[in-house]
């Protein structure tokens, strides 16, 4: 079975803390993505990576950064968490032109 694993299902952080969300895929996919999902706003792309050390901004990159040092791992970083970053974060990966495979999601609450 294909697998995208996100490091934490639920996190609670305080405003100003640095937050790392990690994602690992075991399918040798070139492309990896981070989305956030909010009620009424659907899925919004934060960043994606098309290869190791390569990244591109999505639709809402402000307040986020990413790291892809190895092909299987794509990390989302919130340098200084804010309450408006409380959300469900979804990681996904795919071969170019293929379907997205999603992780289970990480629900982040920033107090």
């Amino acid at each position, binding site marked *: 079975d294909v697998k995208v694993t996100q490091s934490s299902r639920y996190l609670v952080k305080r405003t100003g803390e640095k937050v790392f969300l990690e994602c690992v895929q075991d399918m040798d996919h070139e492309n990896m993505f981070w989305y956030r999902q909010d009620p009424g706003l*659907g*899925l919004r*792309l934060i960043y994606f990576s098309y290869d190791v050390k390569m990244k591109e901004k999505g639709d809402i990159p402000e307040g986020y950064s990413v790291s892809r040092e190895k092909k299987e791992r794509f990390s989302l970083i919130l340098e200084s968490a804010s309450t408006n970053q409380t959300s469900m974060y979804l990681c996904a990966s795919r071969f*170019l032109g*293929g379907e997205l495979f999603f992780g289970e999601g990480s629900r982040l609450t920033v107090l």
Partner: protein
Amino acid sequence: AQKVTQAQTEISVVEKEDVTLDCVYETRDTTYYLFWYKQPPSGELVFLIRRNSFDEQNEISGRYSWNFQKSTSSFNFTITASQVVDSAVYFCALSEAITHFNKFYFGSGTKLNVKP
């Protein structure tokens, strides 16, 4: 402009009823891919089907069927004899092969409630 439109925000049916979820898309690419995903209450998005723009054949998989019509830019999803386990949010998505080839455009989702 919305690339993928799912006009039905929420649908409620009684078990065993058939239900169709609508999806209309917009693209200028001649090569593109369409997808349906299911998001049950647990939260994980589950891939259901992928269709490329050159294949207009309808697809059936058990109780699920998909109707792809390029003439109306629609990719509708029908569940036959719905079951309570079908309750979820369903997303339609578009990926363009040439323009913005790394982007997925998701519709806003249709929440399906299947009542016993």
